[in-house]
């Protein structure tokens, strides 16, 4: 932190106690303080600043323009409106992460509408809205589109409740739109007509991502839009866009930094193929490439010219084989991030290890998660190969069907800088396949070696020992995901007692019960949230927790036909807004 600021802190803490000395010993007038603080962008820094003293709290609240709310129920729109008068950009996150995997019933909540109503009143100059795991209706989208004349950027990730009709409203009414980013939402797709709703005067788009929508859009409208928007830097189209159409778009927008292609399979004439190749070679600024649905070795070579500058290659929707991947990565030596499907197998990952020395992030998704045949997908060998060649690896998400303790130990020795280690051995409770032992030592090695570890997801056969290791060594851990693991309450207790920076703990199908839940009574207020489902927690323990900790919301959902005493799904989170008033009947607020 700036030494000048620190000095101010010392002198102001002396004056903080006397009521009328607000500015007498204060070296900086408000305007200067506000000017300085307006340069702070990280919400964590701003949070710290606001705790220094009342003056700083005020200066900070007047200068904050970006709002980040990690749990929409931790605070209310009214409280936010009172504190922050000048917000231009809002990021709101709603449902617990396990809702991505169907563990949270529909109509659970996290509806954005009441927030929008407040924003319209208090922040009429709102420009950006980024929602994750929120519910929003078409009406809400219409309201958004018509309530904020300066609205510029809308980003929706993993949201639900709306349809393409809502998008029509956005395209029609937001005259200054710079960003429309629609990702992986549970949305009703009634057709691609929304794209044609952009006015012919709209030329401000910088980001357009509709890759996850399935219907055809008017190519004519799209092409004209792309041509008009000279500042377009991110374009991710959907499957309905063919290869020759893609070529026509690329010719209009060689300045693109991020491209998501449409379908990558089409009978092309030699001339079309050549044109496409040329178009790609002209994209000198391309850093990110995604899409590539149905890509095969027939057309992948058109990409080679553009691969040299790529830092992020997202092949997670392309069922590539090892040889196809090999050729692609051979042309992409600057890759920092790579997402693939496990159809590339260990052989494909070996080529990644040898071709991408700068790799920092690897994600391997399963092409067929329910396939029991061990012959498919990747194993520990692939992961090992990458770790040998890519020493800078710090983020991994790896879905596999077999793993060994020894392999993981070697992997973290090769790559000790992991900040995010998410290993998913797909068969629940799967032991080390060579020794038949639990995978405790694997995760022990991870937490012992990777001192900067922030996020960990464990899997395989695990005893309490894994959690003892985590509690003892994972001092920077913020997020922990547990499934089908542990032997007793002790496991969860070790984590709650040992990880000082823990913010999010999500557990499913593990033998942790009341003693474990209650051992964290003082911990949960320092965390964003706790999720426990299919564990051994009962209603009485939940009630006790709720009673002792008024600033925690303790919510329980029961499964159909289960015992009245069982708390099948428990969601605990800190809140200054009290229990939520919009809970549906199946959510019991204790």
């Amino acid at each position, binding site marked *: 932190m700036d030494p000048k600021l620190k000095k101010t802190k010392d002198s102001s803490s002396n004056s903080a106690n006397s009521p009328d000395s607000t500015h007498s010993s204060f070296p900086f007038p408000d305007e200067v303080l506000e000017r300085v603080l307006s340069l702070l962008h990280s919400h964590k820094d701003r949070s710290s600043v606001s705790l220094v003293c009342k003056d700083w709290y005020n200066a900070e609240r007047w200068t904050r323009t970006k709002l980040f709310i990690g749990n929409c129920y931790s605070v209310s729109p009214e409280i936010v409106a009172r504190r922050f008068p000048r917000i231009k950009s809002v990021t709101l996150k709603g449902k617990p992460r*396990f809702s*991505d*995997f*169907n*563990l949270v019933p529909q109509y659970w909540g996290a509806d954005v509408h009441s927030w929008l109503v407040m924003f319209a009143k208090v922040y009429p100059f709102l420009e950006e809205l980024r929602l994750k795991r929120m519910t929003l209706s078409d009406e809400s989208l219409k309201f958004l589109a018509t309530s904020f004349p300066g609205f510029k950027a809308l980003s929706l990730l*993993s949201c639900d409740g709306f349809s393409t009709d809502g998008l029509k409203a956005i395209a029609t009414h937001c005259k200054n739109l710079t960003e429309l980013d629609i990702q*992986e*939402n*549970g949305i009703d797709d009634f057709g691609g007509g929304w794209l044609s709703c952009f006015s012919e005067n709209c030329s401000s788009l910088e980001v357009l991502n509709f890759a*996850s929508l399935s219907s055809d859009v008017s190519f004519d409208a799209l092409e004209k839009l792309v041509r008009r928007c000279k500042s377009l830097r991110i374009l991710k189209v959907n499957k309905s866009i063919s290869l020759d159409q893609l070529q026509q778009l690329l010719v209009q927008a060689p300045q693109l930094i991020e491209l998501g292609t449409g379908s990558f399979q089409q009978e092309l004439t030699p001339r079309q193929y050549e044109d496409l190749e040329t178009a790609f070679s002209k994209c000198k600024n391309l850093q990110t490439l995604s899409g590539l649905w*149905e890509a*095969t*070795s*027939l057309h992948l070579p058109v990409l080679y010219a553009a691969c040299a500058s790529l830092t992020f290659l997202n092949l*997670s*929707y392309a*069922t*590539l*084989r090892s040889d196809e991947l090999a050729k692609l990565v051979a042309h992409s030596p600057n890759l920092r991030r790579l997402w693939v499907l496990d*159809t590339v*197998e*260990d*052989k494909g990952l070996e080529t990644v290890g040898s071709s991408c020395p700068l790799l920092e992030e690897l994600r391997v*998704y*399963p*092409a*067929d*998660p*329910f*396939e*029991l*045949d*061990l*012959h*498919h997908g990747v*194993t520990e*060998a692939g992961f090992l190969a990458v770790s040998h060649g890519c020493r800078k690896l710090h983020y991994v998400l790896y*879905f596999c069907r077999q793993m060994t303790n020894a392999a993981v130990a070697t992997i973290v020795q090769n790559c000790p800088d992991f900040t995010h280690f998410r290993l*998913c051995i*797909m*068969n*629940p*409770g*799967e032991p080390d*396949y*060579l020794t*038949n032992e639990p995978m405790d030592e694997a995760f022990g090695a991870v937490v012992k070696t990777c001192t900067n570890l922030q996020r960990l997801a464990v899997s395989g056969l695990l005893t309490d020992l894994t959690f003892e290791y985590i509690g003892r060594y994972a001092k920077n851990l913020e997020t922990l*995901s547990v*499934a*089908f693991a542990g032997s007793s309450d002790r496991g969860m207790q070790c984590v709650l007692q040992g990880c000082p920076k823990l913010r999010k703990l999500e557990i*499913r*199908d593990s033998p942790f019960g009341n003693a474990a839940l209650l051992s964290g009574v003082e911990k949960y207020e320092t965390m964003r949230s706790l999720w426990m489902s299919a564990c051994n927690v009962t209603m009485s323990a939940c009630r006790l927790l709720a009673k002792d900790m008024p600033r925690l919301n303790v919510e329980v959902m029961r499964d159909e036909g289960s015992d009245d005493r069982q708390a099948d799904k428990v969601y605990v989170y800190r809140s200054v807004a009290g229990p939520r008033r919009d809970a549906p009947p199946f959510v019991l607020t204790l």
Partner: protein
Amino acid sequence: MSPENTKELLESETSGGLKTELTLGLPGDSQVQKSGIKRGFTDVVHLNDAIAESQPHSKAQVVGWPPVRTYRKNLMKNGKYVKVAVDGAPYLRKVNLEIYSSYQDLLTAMGDMFTCLTICNVLNERKLMDSANGEEYVPTYEDKDGDWMLVGDVPWKMFVESCKRLRLMKSSEAIGLGSAAPSTPSKGSSISC
């Protein structure tokens, strides 16, 4: 995993120390593992048995597991997995037809999968041969109408769409299918080897 270990594993799963010796193998029985990455067929089969015994539920029955987002799951459902049977072997395999772009690709993969088989191109017909016992296999498939067809007659994409499952039929039994329409020039991805 060596054959000895898998056998031990299997034995430890059976109650009362009963020795159930399952010796499975394709014609020509391969015991040799391929370059440590893919297992021999017999190993895979033994391991599957062991897992099936220790896991009461199949993966597909557990809600939300593996943790793959609904959006991605729905997309990947489009993978075209079909069963592959080989005459004489009691266990089937599965291939995802969508990851191949030609008949040659598919045959190569089947040769990899059933390690004892190699491709032999005889008179423009595609066959797989077991070098150990000289037995020849002809790739056939069941189409949408339920008819058994010879692999290779229609364009690749059409084949992927209509193929319901594959069967490597012993050449000796495939005589009726063998002489199909006079072979068209082997060019492009449709028929050529």
